[in-house]
């Protein structure tokens, strides 16, 4: 991977991404998550498993992918849209190097703007409490979950989600000029809706890969992790590699359209 990293492209991408007006949007989902967490911490009784639901399910399937969507489609898609990508592509730099470098920059930015806020929110929330598996969550059956374990699990899960989501969104930004719209539909319909209500869809859900990995640390049934850690890691790796390989192939075939006669 390190041979594919190009520091010049990374520097240009960082300047380009953080210099655009939409950069301030990066922090909005994180801000919402932290404010929401503080509000719940103040208002909700400690006996309910809200940290796992809010920071896990909602955080991984809505807020984190939205941040990754904004960043992942900015690092390459914005340059493709305005045509400035041609200055990178008209050099002997390998297309795999362009894609991997931009993916790494997007991943780091998403970790800063989403995974770290997820950790901060989890530390604010403290430990949750969950009904043990199989009890149905009846009154008086809650099990206390360690705050530090939950925070660690959510942080590691968010880091994993940052990697996988960005591979997907970088690929989408090369595949279509309507990357934001396509990505938004994917997040809202697939990740936020179907994967949480259709159990079979979890095998192809990035948020559930993150929840599966998070649960490996937190051991919290309220995280509603439908996948085991090995499955989550393997599927996450497969999706990441496949998305990046497809992005490289698409970028290698990048065309400038001439006017037809």
């Amino acid at each position, binding site marked *: 991977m390190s041979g594919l990293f190009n520091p*010049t492209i990374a520097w240009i991408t960082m300047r380009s991404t953080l210099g655009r007006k939409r950069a301030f949007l990066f922090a909005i989902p994180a801000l919402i998550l932290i404010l929401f967490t503080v509000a719940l911490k103040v208002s909700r009784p400690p006996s309910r498993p809200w940290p796992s639901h809010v920071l896990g399910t909602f955080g991984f399937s809505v807020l984190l992918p939205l941040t990754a969507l904004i960043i992942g489609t900015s690092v390459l898609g914005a340059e493709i849209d305005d045509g*400035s990508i041609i200055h990178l592509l*008209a050099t002997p730099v390998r297309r795999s190097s362009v894609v991997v470098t931009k993916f790494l920059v997007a991943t780091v930015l998403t970790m800063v703007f989403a995974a770290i806020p997820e950790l901060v929110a989890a530390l604010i929330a403290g430990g949750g409490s969950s009904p043990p598996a199989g009890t149905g969550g009846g009154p008086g059956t809650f099990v206390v979950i360690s705050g530090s374990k939950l925070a660690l699990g959510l942080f590691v899960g968010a880091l994993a989600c940052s990697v996988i989501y960005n591979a997907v969104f970088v690929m989408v930004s090369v595949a279509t000029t309507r990357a934001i719209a396509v990505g938004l539909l994917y997040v809202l319909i697939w990740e936020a809706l179907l994967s949480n209500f259709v159990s079979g869809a979890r095998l192809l859900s990035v948020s559930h890969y993150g929840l599966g990995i998070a649960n490996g640390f937190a051991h919290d049934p309220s995280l509603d992790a439908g996948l085991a850690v090995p499955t989550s890691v393997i599927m996450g790796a497969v999706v990441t590699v496949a998305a990046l390989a497809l992005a490289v192939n698409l970028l290698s075939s990048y065309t400038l359209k*001439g006017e037809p006669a």
Partner: protein
Amino acid sequence: MTIELRSVSRWYGNVVAVNDVTMSIGPGVTGLLGPNGAGKSTIMHMIAGFLPPSRGELTITSGPTSSGPASSGSTWRNPALYRQIGLVPERDSVYAFLTGDQFVTSTAKLHQLPEPGAAAARAIAMLDMADAANRKIATYSKGMRQRIKVAAALVHDPEVLLLDEPFNGMDPRQRLHMMDLLDKLGSGGRTILFSSHILEEVERLSGTIQVVVAGRLAASGDFRAIRRLMTSRPHVFTVRSSDDRLLGSTLIGRPAVTAVELTGTGLQVRTSDYGAFCRDIAVLARDQNVRLREVLPTDESLESVFAYLVAN
């Protein structure tokens, strides 16, 4: 160091943009001309490696340089060939958040040049942009952005330089400077291909043209030679002599001369045979004891060549 297109076609669905074009572009400056929609941008994009031909073969062959070994092949999905190609795209999109120096230096780094800073400084100086190099590109005029794009395209000293409408947005002084530069680069053995709709500048800069009309190659070669080959359309000469009326009456008797007009400053003569007229007028003037002061072809401009090709 030669660009070869052999029976190259490119279509979009049912629309044919380029139809069976064969051309060879060697060292020197070559102009690629055509009206809007003729397919010249499509040809430029295919040569630059940003569009595959639907049919036919396109190769660029270049010798070894300090930055890489000899190479030959299609530019499509072949980024290694950009070591010897510089591209100035038509679209006015650059990294506006960078300074001119940062933009050219980063291009040098992407080409893995051993001294990117020195290479960038040299290319910037070549384009007369040193004074503005530390300003952000966002503050540049359109002509300055064109020049910094050319500097970035030249930073690795390529053998082949492709420029799509390079004079867009430049003021007259910048245009002259750019024309001088391209002329020098072409004279130095580089293969320069540029497209432009400013025919007067093409005429001044390039003796060799490739004219594309409706997706087909309408003409190829020296534009003055092309004009002379168009014998079906009369050539127009302005003639000044010691006795214009006598010379005009003699000329009208020649089979190659189709019309003679006496103007306030001399004669305007139309002829269907360029070579025969040039031979005849000298002999006739001598026989009539008329001193020739000026014999000037007035419609040899590229504009007339181009208009004729498009009309036919």
